[in-house]
């Protein structure tokens, strides 16, 4: 059971209050109609799915109903960083 810090409620809450919404930082193409089928398919379906650091979107469903990002190790389940939508992570795989 994950224990997740909500950056808006500013405290740790239990996983059952949240919904995991998958990989973060997948921007909707600005001009979808200009995308090829391949590009659109990749936007829709293709994911990094790393074993290790993963930047994710979560939703505080039962709490403040805000989306936010977190960086989590998908092997150890350790949460490394919480940051708001629109912000960039500081802990990244390439920074070790």
């Amino acid at each position, binding site marked *: *059971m*994950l224990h997740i810090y909500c950056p808006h409620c500013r405290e740790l809450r239990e*996983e*059952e209050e949240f*919904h*995991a919404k*998958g*990989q973060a930082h997948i921007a909707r193409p600005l001009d979808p109609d200009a995308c090829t*089928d*391949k590009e*659109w*398919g*990749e936007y*829709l*379906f*293709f*994911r*990094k*799915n*790393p*074993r290790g650091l*993963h930047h*994710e979107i979560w939703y505080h469903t039962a709490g403040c109903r805000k989306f936010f990002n977190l960086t*989590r190790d*998908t*092997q*150890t*389940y350790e949460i490394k960083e919480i940051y708001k939508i629109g912000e960039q992570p500081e802990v990244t795989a390439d920074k070790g």
Partner: protein
Amino acid sequence: MQRYSGFGLLKHSLSFHENWQRVWSNPTPKKKYDVIIIGGGGHGLATAYYLAKEHGITNVAVLEKGHLGGGNICRNTTIVRSNYLWDESAALYEHSMKLWEGLSQDLNYNQMFSQRGVYHTCHTLQDLRSNERLVNANRLQGIDNEMVYADQLQKEIPALDCSKDARYPVLGASVQRRGGNARHDAVAWGYARAADSLGVDLIQNCEVIGMEINDGKITGVKTKDYGVIKADRVGCVVAGNSGVLAKMAGFELPVESHPLQALVSEPIKPFLDTVVMSNHVHGYMSQSDKGDLVIGAGIDGWVGYGQRGSYGIIEHTIQAIVELFPLTSRVRMNRQWGGIVDTCPDASPIISETPVKNLFFNCGWGTGGFKGTPGSGNLFAYTLAHGKPHPIAEPFSYYRFHTGALIDEHGAAGVAH
């Protein structure tokens, strides 16, 4: 290969079982193979076996980073069925089902494959509609499936609560009577033994750490302990690690790896001789030949490679089981565990060519992996032997996620497990 039989057992008992042969050897890898299969799980071993048996390709290595059959093949709830909705999936799983029927004899290894029937219970009108749709499709696809309604169902499964005062009363069920369970370890070990006897090299403790790709074409793989091993074709069958291997080959997959949990009760006297699955209340259960209630739990909503998930999933599953089978309330849960399932957005697998020439992937089986093992191996062997997919595997292309030709089993009743 030493043949197994009851007489053999008797004979060996006279020599205190001291003369049983090894089920597989531990060869050192050669420098080059015709085909390398990455992943010594059920699907990988089945692929190797059918490559050797049906295509005569025996210069094959299976590279396994741990021990044979150590992944999802030994962590699942052993359900076998083929009653999938769409023509493509139905054909795929039925191909597998036909191989299951007779697999013990084919491999000379008892798979303990019991066609004890798989029921999907219906709790709402929408459930009924979906299952009736499935049953009608299956019958015309040549797959046995039938509807059973509450009164009859209660007779067939006395322990199931079919009363009207349940929160979601059971209205009926679809049942595939040819469906059932098999013994998971026996599948891996049976294929391994048979593949080994046909000359396939099963290399354990051999982790692949890179791919040798030149001009968009794979020529071999880099291993941790044995350096580069060359191959004409490489097949990747590594549920739970597909994303990692794809990354080595330089592409992404439409796959996410999630924890899928399961649990067993203590062994109790058998009271359930079938498999019961409820997609609506989210629980499914069978009882093993040892008496354990084998229960599948849900998939966690996040990517996880830790072979464990959240406790909340276990709670919800147990609630559902107690709701379906009230007499389990005082039965005790012995052990829980998790596997890593690679899930595709349409809940159907990928058996396909990839952007790298001569590199093929077989992944994304989600919860369908165990039942798909023989079929998957058989079709993937064809794919590796011919360098192009078998017609049954063709729709399960990686490229369907570009064109939109998804085989979406989510909407269908049969999706869960």
